[in-house]
C-alpha cells in the first residue's frame, strides 16, 4: 500500500531494525546471508578484527543452505577480493534463496495490510529469535569495531562455516597480489562515494578499518544504496535518527557496556565521576552488569559536591537522588531528568568559537554519563535523551542562542506533557472502559499509570476491589496501598508468595512496565513476570499499562542480558528486625553471592493486552508502534 514501505517489507519479518546497527544493514542482511560466507572468507579464516564487524553474517546458515553453500564452493574456488568487488557491482546474485524461505508473498501482504494480525505476530516472533541473536552480535561488533578483538563469542557461530571451508582456508590467507590491492583500493573509493551519495549518515560506518573490511561491506553498501534510492524517505528518516546515536557511542560509555570486559571497565573508570568499588562477591551469571559496593558511593559523591564543575547543580541533584533511591519509577526518573536538563539549558551559554549544537550535545552527553554512573538509565530515559539530542541536532543554525534555548525548553515541556502526562490520561481513559462493577483487580508493585487508572475508576463510582501484590525489598506497594486506601478504595494487600492463592478471586491483572520491547516482551519491576505467569495459568487477562515513549526496538528473551542489580544488602537485611542477621558479614564469605535483580522480562505469551496512548494493542503490535512513533517523533 505504501510504496516507501514495500522494499523493507520484503525482508522484514526476519530483520526488524533491532538494537544498534549501521543504518543500511538490516534490509540487506537477508540478501547477503548466502553471499557472505563467500565474500567474508578472509576474516573467517584469518581471524582478523574485521570479522567482528561482520558478525551479522556469521550466523550458521540453516541446514539446506549449508548444502547449497558447499555446492557453490565446489564450483567456485577460492574467492579473491576482486570477485567481491564484482559482486558488489552486480547486486546479490544469490539473494533469491532467502526470499523464498522467509518471505512468502502472504507474509508480505499480511504485514503491510494488517500489521496487527496474530498470524503475522507469530511469524514475527519466530523471526525475532534469530534477529535478536543478530542484534546482540551486531551491537557487540559495532562497539568493538575499531579496537577490541574479543573473538570467542563469534567463535561458536563461525565453526560451521570454518569447517566448510577448511579446504580452501590456506589459500585465503595469502597476501593479496598487486592487482588485488588495487582492486581493494578502488573498492574503498567506491564505498566512500556510495556513502557520500547516501548522505552523511554512513560516513561513520564507512570509515574503513582495513581493506578486508571494505570488501565485505561493499556488497552491503551497494545493496543498501539501491534500497535507499527506492525509498529515500525511509533512509532519510534513519539518517537523522542515527546520527545522535553515533555521537553517543563515541563519547560516553555505552548504556549496555559489558562489565566483564576488564579493558573497557578500566577505561570507563578513568572517566567516571562517581568512585565505584566493585563488589567482591559478584554474581557469576551477571558479571556483564555493573555490580558495585553500594555503601561507599553516596558519601563519595556527596563529598565531591563542589568539585564537579562540569555537572550542572540541577543534574547533580537528580543524580544524587537516583543514587540515594529517592526517585524511582520510569516516569518520575524521566521527568526529573528532563527538568534538570531544562534547568541546565536555561543556564547554558555557548562558549566562544563553539557552536551551540555541538557544545550542547557534548554537555548533555557529559550529564548523561554522569547519570548513568549514578544509576543505569531506564529505557524511558534513553528514549527521552535520544529525543532531546535529535532536537538539538535539528536546530537550525540561524537561530540565536536565546531562541534556540527557548525552543529546546519548550520541546522538553511538550515532550513531558504529550508523551507522559497526556499519554497517561489517554491510558486511563482506555483502561477505565475495561473495569466493570464487581471486578477484582490485581496489581504488582507501584505503577503510576495503574494508580491513576484505579483512582479514576474509583472517582467514576465503579465498584471494584484492588489486590496489591508486593515484594521485598522495596515494598513499593505499601505506598500505593496507603494512597489508595486514603481515597477509599477497597484494597487487599499481600506479598508475592501468596499470589497463586489470591489469583483465584482476581478478574483482571493490571501491571505497569518499565519498557515494552519490540517482540512484545514486557520489561518491568522484578516479580511482574511471576504475577503474569500465574495469571495466565488461571486464565486471568493481563493488561499492561505503558506509555508509548517507553517502547523500545530492542528484543530481549531473558532477564539476564540486560538488567540492573540492586544493593545486595537490601535483601540480606530486614528493616526493623535486627535479630534476623544470619547473613551479617556475607561479603566475607567466598562462596555466597546475593542477587538482587531489579527488572525481569515477561514473555509476550503471558500478556493479553498492552494499553498505550495509541490504544489497546496486542503485544505483537509493539513493533508497529515503535516504527510509527519514531517517525512521528522525528518528523515533527
Amino acid at each position, binding site marked *: 500500500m505504501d510504496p516507501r514501505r514495500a522494499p523493507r517489507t520484503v525482508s522484514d519479518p526476519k530483520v526488524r531494525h533491532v538494537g544498534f546497527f549501521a543504518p543500511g544493514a538490516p534490509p540487506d542482511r537477508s540478501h547477503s546471508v548466502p553471499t557472505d560466507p563467500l565474500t567474508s572468507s578472509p576474516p573467517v579464516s584469518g581471524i582478523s578484527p574485521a570479522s567482528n564487524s561482520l558478525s551479522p553474517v556469521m550466523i550458521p546458515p540453516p541446514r539446506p543452505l549449508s548444502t547449497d553453500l558447499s555446492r557453490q564452493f565446489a564450483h567456485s574456488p577460492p574467492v579473491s577480493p576482486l570477485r567481491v568487488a564484482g559482486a558488489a557491482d552486480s547486486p546479490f546474485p544469490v539473494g533469491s534463496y532467502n526470499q523464498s524461505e522467509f518471505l512468502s508473498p502472504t507474509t508480505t501482504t499480511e504485514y503491510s495490510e494488517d500489521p496487527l494480525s496474530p498470524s503475522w505476530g507469530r511469524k514475527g516472533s519466530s523471526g525475532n529469535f534469530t534477529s535478536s541473536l543478530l542484534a546482540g552480535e551486531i551491537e557487540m561488533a559495532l562497539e568493538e569495531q575499531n579496537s577490541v578483538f574479543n573473538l570467542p563469542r563469534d567463535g561458536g557461530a563461525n565453526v560451521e562455516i570454518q569447517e566448510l571451508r577448511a579446504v580452501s582456508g590456506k589459500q585465503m590467507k595469502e597476501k593479496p597480489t598487486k592487482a588485488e590491492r588495487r582492486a581493494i583500493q578502488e573498492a574503498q573509493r567506491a564505498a566512500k562515494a556510495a556513502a557520500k551519495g547516501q548522505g552523511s549518515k554512513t560516513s561513520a560506518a564507512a570509515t574503513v578499518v582495513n581493506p578486508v573490511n571494505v570488501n565485505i561491506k561493499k556488497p552491503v553498501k551497494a545493496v543498501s544504496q539501491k534500497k535507499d534510492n527506492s525509498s529515500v524517505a525511509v533512509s532519510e528518516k534513519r539518517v537523522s535518527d542515527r546520527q545522535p546515536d553515533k555521537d553517543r557511542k563515541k563519547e560516553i560509555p555505552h548504556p549496555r557496556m559489558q562489565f566483564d570486559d576488564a579493558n573497557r571497565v578500566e577505561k570507563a573508570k578513568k572517566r567516571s565521576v562517581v568512585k565505584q568499588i566493585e563488589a567482591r562477591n559478584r554474581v557469576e551469571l551477571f558479571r556483564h552488569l555493573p555490580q558495585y559496593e553500594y555503601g561507599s558511593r553516596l558519601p563519595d559523591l556527596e563529598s565531591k559536591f563542589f568539585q564537579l564543575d562540569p555537572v550542572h547543580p540541577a543534574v547533580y*541533584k537528580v543524580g544524587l537522588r537516583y543514587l540515594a533511591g529517592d526517585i524511582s519509577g520510569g516516569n518520575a526518573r524521566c521527568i*526529573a531528568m528532563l527538568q534538570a536538563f531544562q534547568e541546565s539549558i536555561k543556564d547554558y551559554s555557548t562558549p566562544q568559537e563553539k557552536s551551540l549544537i555541538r557544545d550542547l550535545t557534548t554537555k548533555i552527553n557529559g550529564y548523561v554519563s554522569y547519570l548513568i554512573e549514578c544509576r543505569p538509565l531506564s529505557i524511558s530515559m534513553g528514549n527521552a535523551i535520544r529525543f532531546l539530542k535529535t532536537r538539538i541536532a535539528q536546530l537550525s543554525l540561524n537561530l540565536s542562542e536565546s531562541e534556540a534555548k527557548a525552543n529546546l525548553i519548550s520541546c522538553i515541556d511538550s515532550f513531558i506533557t504529550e508523551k507522559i502526562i497526556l499519554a497517561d490520561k489517554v491510558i486511563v481513559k482506555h483502561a477505565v472502559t475495561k473495569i466493570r462493577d464487581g471486578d477484582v483487580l490485581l496489581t504488582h508493585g507501584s505503577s503510576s499509570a495503574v494508580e491513576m487508572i484505579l483512582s479514576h475508576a474509583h472517582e467514576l463510582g465503579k465498584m471494584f476491589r484492588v489486590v496489591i501484590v508486593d515484594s521485598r525489598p522495596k515494598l513499593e506497594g505499601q505506598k500505593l496501598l496507603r494512597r489508595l486506601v486514603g481515597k477509599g478504595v477497597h484494597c487487599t494487600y499481600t506479598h508475592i508468595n501468596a499470589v497463586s492463592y489470591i489469583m483465584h478471586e482476581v478478574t483482571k491483572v493490571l501491571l505497569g512496565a518499565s519498557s515494552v520491547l519490540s517482540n512484545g516482551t514486557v520489561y518491568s519491576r522484578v516479580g511482574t513476570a511471576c504475577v503474569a505467569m500465574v495469571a495466565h495459568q488461571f486464565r486471568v487477562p493481563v493488561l499492561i499499562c505503558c506509555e508509548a515513549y517507553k517502547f523500545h526496538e530492542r528484543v530481549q528473551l531473558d532477564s539476564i542480558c540486560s538488567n540492573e542489580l540492586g544493593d545486595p544488602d537490601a535483601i540480606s537485611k530486614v528493616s526493623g528486625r535486627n535479630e534476623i542477621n544470619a547473613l551479617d558479614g556475607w561479603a566475607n564469605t567466598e562462596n555466597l553471592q546475593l542477587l538482587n535483580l531489579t527488572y525481569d522480562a515477561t514473555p509476550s505469551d503471558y500478556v493479553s493486552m498492552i494499553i498505550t496512548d495509541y490504544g489497546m494493542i496486542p503485544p505483537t503490535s509493539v513493533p508497529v508502534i515503535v516504527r510509527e512513533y519514531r517517525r512521528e517523533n522525528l518528523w515533527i
Partner: protein
Amino acid sequence: MDFQVVVLAGGFSKTLVPLVSKEVPKVLLPVANRPVLSYVLELLEQNDLRKLVKVVEGESAALLISSWISSTFVDRLQVEVTAVPEDVGTAGALRAIDHRLTAKDILVLSGDLVSEIPPGAVAAAHRRHDAAVTAMLCSVPVSGPSESGSSGAKDKTKKAGRYNIVGLDPTKQFLLHIAAGAEMDKDIRVQKSILRAAGQMEIRADLMDAHMYAFKRSVLQEVLNQKENFQSLRRDVLPYLVRTQLRSELFLNGAQSDENGSGMDAVQNSKVLLSQLLANASTPSFHEMYALDSAESAPISRKTHKCCVYIANKSKYCARLNSIQAFSDINRDIVGDASHISGYNFSNHNNIIHPSAVLGSKTTVGPHCMVGEGSQMGDKCSVKKSVIGRHCRIGSNVKIVNSVVMNHVSIGDGCSIQGSIICSNVQLQERAVLKDCQVGASFVVTAGSEYKGESLAKKEKQ
C-alpha cells in the same frame, strides 16, 4: 553550584581569655604552628570554594585577619573580609551582610573549625532534600585526660557544645529536636506533632554541632528579618527552624514554592498531575506525609520545611576550638592522631622538628611533637606530646609534657611544664613549675614559682 560560603570568625572570645588578646584574635590562635583559620580555609580550597565572605567581629581583629589572609592566601582564595560590631552574635553578623548574600544556598562555617569533613557532603545532603537548613553533627571528640583539672568556671559554653540533645528521625536524615546543653533543664520537651508525624525519634547526646550549616538563603533572610532578637545561629535560629518545621507559616513567599520540587507552581491541571507523579514516585519524608494527611482533612495543605542533618563519619576528624581544653586537645590531635590534616610531613620518629631548630646534647623530642622554626633547646631537655612554636629559647633540663608553647617564649633552665598552654613572648624564669596552667601573652613567671591549674595573665587583662 550556586553556593555562597560565609566564614564566621568571631573576634575575641571570652572563653579563651588568657590565650586570646587584642593582638591575637581567636581564629589566629596557632594550632600546630598555623592559625586555626588556615585549616578551614584550606578545607574550602580543597573543595574548590575559592570565593568567600568572611565576617569578623571588631575592626581591629578584622584588620589583623585580612592582613594575614592576604599574605598567606593571596593567589589562592578570594576573600572579602567584613567587620561587624562586637557582640552582635552569629545571627547578627549574617544580618549585617544580608545584602551580600545572593546565591540560592548559603554555607555558614565557623572559623574555628578543624575538620576534614568535606563541606560538599553537607551541601549535597542539603540539596538532595531541598532542605531549609542542614546542620552538620559530628561525634564528640575524645577530650584529654586532664579535663577535670582545667578551670571549671569557663567551661559553660564548652558543655553547651558538647552535651547537645539531638532528636533524629529513624532514617537519621532529619532533625526533629535540638537543644543545647546549657538551656537544658532536667526534662526535655518534644513537640507532639513532630513526634507523631515522624513516628519515631532517636535521641542522641553524643553528637556535637560542628557549626557548619547550609541554609536556604530565602529562609535565612526571612528568619533574620522577622526575628530581630535572634542572636545566635546555633541557639536561636536553628532550634526555631526545627521547632516550626511542620507549621512554617513564615515562608509563604518564594521559599515554599521551590521547596516541594519545581513542579509546584501549579496552575494548569497537567502541572498538578506532574508534581503528583513526581511526589508519588519519590520516597516521601515524613514532612510530605504530614502535609498530605492534612491536605485531605483541611482545604489548605500545611506548609512544611525540612531540617536535615548530616552526621559525619566517626573516622573523620572534626573539632571546634571553642574552649581552652579544646585548644590543647586539637593541638594534641593534629600532631598526633589526626596528623594527616596538618599537612606536614612527619619524620620517622613521628614528630616534626624544623631543620633550623637547634637541639642540645641528650635532648629528646618524643613522638607526636613539633618544634618550630629557629627554636633552640639546651641540653638534657625532654619534650613529649607537645608543640613548641617558632624562635623559642629553652634552657637545659626542661621538661615539657602535653603542652603548647607558642612563639618567642623563653624558658629558663630546670623548668617543668605539664598540660599547660604558654602564649607568645612569655618568659619563664629558672625552675618554674607549671601544671595545667594557661599563661597569657608576655607574662613573666618568676623564678622558682609553682602554679597548678591557674590562669596567669598580665594584670591589665584580668
